[in-house]
């Protein structure tokens, strides 16, 4: 059973996740965001946010987003000059968690490195969600 992010404390470290950016998935992502600029770049280029989306997708296999969760902030540093064919390793932890007026504000640090250890992405997603799991009208 997948745990909800709502149940995880500050400092929780997610299990290391390994994944690949397959050409098929990158094409699905680029189609979903209608990225018309990436096609003009050399083959094997991909939208940098595809890496963020794919690593977040991997994270969601460990912990589900609470219903009604809202993304309020995002920081991303990326360096994609590494081997794009390699298996990627994602590590994530809950860097902050606070509660105010019935809402939880949570910061999740996410780092992605190549199999050889080269950092390809680091960043923090800040989300908020209702403390009780209720929706707010």
């Amino acid at each position, binding site marked *: 059973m997948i745990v909800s992010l709502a149940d995880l404390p500050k400092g929780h470290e997610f299990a290391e996740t390994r994944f690949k950016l397959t050409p098929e*998935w990158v094409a*699905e*992502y680029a*189609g*979903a*965001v*209608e*990225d*018309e*600029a*990436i*096609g*003009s*770049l*050399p*083959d094997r*280029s*991909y*939208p*940098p*946010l595809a890496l*963020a*989306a794919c690593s*977040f*997708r991997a994270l*969601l*296999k460990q912990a589900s*987003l609470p*219903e*009604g*969760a*809202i*993304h*309020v*902030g*995002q*920081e*991303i*540093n*990326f*360096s*994609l*000059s590494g081997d794009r064919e390699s298996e990627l390793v994602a590590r994530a932890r809950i860097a902050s968690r606070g509660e105010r007026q019935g809402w939880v504000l949570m910061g999740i640090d996410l780092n992605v490195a190549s199999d050889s250890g080269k950092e390809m992405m680091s960043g923090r997603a800040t989300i908020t969600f209702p403390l009780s799991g209720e*929706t*707010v*009208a």
Partner: protein
Amino acid sequence: MSQRTEQVRTYRENDSLPVVTKTITQEKINRYADASGDHNPLHLDPAFAAKTQFGGTIAHGMLVVAYVSEMMTEAFGEAWVMGGRLKIRFRGAAHPGDTVTASGRVVRVEGARTTCEVECRNQTGDVLVSGDAEVTIR
């Protein structure tokens, strides 16, 4: 696949970036949900979303930010794709039917590093996301 052959233009402070405009649809939101694995009902379930403060489904924030990234790719080409930094705050929601325009302006050029203010607005001018993007041009 065609490839960019022209030189990426040189940007100076106060130069505007090429705008990117997209229309949000529920079908696009559904596609992004499938690609990202984020099936939060706030994005997909009209009945659930109607009970929230948004009054209906909204696009994933990172779908809207992807338009900023496309703008940066259009402006800086491979330099953006190879490495950069993006710091964004989400200030409003994009609903199906909204037209979202990503725009930006160069605010600082320091050596190889170019910093831009970036934002997305809807068709009524409401700011949906704002922040800054930094790219190193080698």
